[in-house]
């Protein structure tokens, strides 16, 4: 969606201010939110793309001004409320009132090392051949869905070149809508910076994006 998260090429945010010896967390609550959100993944009530959509569909003014873990907190809360896992009353009271909904599993502390090591690979077996090969010229499609996509606004309707075939990966657009993983080919696509940004770009500069086959059309 064209939400607050799609930031590539926006202007006016000012300089980047790195922090010397930055800690992983700036407050205990940030650490708890990170740990809780990772742990909640095991419950299997949403997938990665649904959780990304929950974050990016926050109102743009909130998305841009909230701190990072505040966005995580709001999105996780929204996902759990939507699924009836928790209620507004429980959040206000700070205690459980209703029975829990059945979840896939609870991540226990003893399982943390193996769960983190396993991660969540998204490559899936392929029954088709990739439509494109390195060196092929492609044209990105022009879409503006209300739902989730990983084709950023600045790279729509642009000419690029296939640089690499990454593999056969879960397609975020359908996965976020609950329409299944519908895995498809994923490519690294290279764009001349001047194709994206015009004369302001330095000659020779490039931007690469990892784009799924449905985002691309071939050129003769």
């Amino acid at each position: 969606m064209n939400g607050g998260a799609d930031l590539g090429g926006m202007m006016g945010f000012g300089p980047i201010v790195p922090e010397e010896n930055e800690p992983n967390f700036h407050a205990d609550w940030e650490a708890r939110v990170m740990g809780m959100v990772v742990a909640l993944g095991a419950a299997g009530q949403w997938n990665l793309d649904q959780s990304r959509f929950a974050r990016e569909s926050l109102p743009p003014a909130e998305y841009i001004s909230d701190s990072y873990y505040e966005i995580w907190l709001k999105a996780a809360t929204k996902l759990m409320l939507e699924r009836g896992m928790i209620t507004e009353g429980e959040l206000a009271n700070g205690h459980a009132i209703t029975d829990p909904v059945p979840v896939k599993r609870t991540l226990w502390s003893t399982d943390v090392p193996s769960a983190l090591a396993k991660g969540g690979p998204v490559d899936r077996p392929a029954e088709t051949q990739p439509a494109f090969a390195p060196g092929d010229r492609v044209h990105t499609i022009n879409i503006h869905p209300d739902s989730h996509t990983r084709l950023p606004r600045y790279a729509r309707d642009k000419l690029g070149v296939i640089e690499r075939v990454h593999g056969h990966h879960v397609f975020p657009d359908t996965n976020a809508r609950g329409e299944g993983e519908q895995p498809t080919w994923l490519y690294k696509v290279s764009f001349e910076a001047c194709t994206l940004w015009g004369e302001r770009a330095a000659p020779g500069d490039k931007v690469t994006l990892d784009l799924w086959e449905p985002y691309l059309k071939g050129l003769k």
Partner: protein
Amino acid sequence: MHDHADHSHMTDIEARVRALETVLTEKGYIDPEAVDAIIQTYETEIGPRNGAHVVAKAWSDPAFRSWLEKDATAAIHSLGFMSRQGEHMQAVFNGPGQHHLVVCTLCSCYPWSVLGLPPVWYKSPPFRSRAVIDPGGVLADFGLTLPDGTAITVHDSTAEMRYLVIPERPKGTEGWSEGELAKLVNRDSMIGTALADAP
């Protein structure tokens, strides 16, 4: 900050997070000790030292470097760095006239398995908005000026592929061991906002 009579020492967000954790624990959705263990892992085990190990090995072992070029996922996993946000990896190599910079304009994709959790600036609108359209200006914010004629390739992480920049090996390090070399590899040099340290 709001002051509440019953927990005036807590900010509003601290109170919200605490309430949520209590509810989730009481409902059996999470184990607070698992949350502790996750936090502890990223505070003590998974961080940029992992990536520095990969880079130092790439600098000193040509066979490993070429494996990294062909299949970074397998090469990096062979060193034991195979956790969340590092399931699918690609390494990109700086060299004379070519510099690489990694960003995620859509969220905060970052190779946790080799760099740990990302810094605030990486996740912030100033970096995410500008890295793709003005990479030279971004590098200038970090105090990095590249030699004239250096082309910059910006890798916008739009899929689950995670990028690790292999900076150029600093001059004057001939004969150094992997362990010594790894000390010259700072986190930002593996994102592309810095170079490796000079010896």
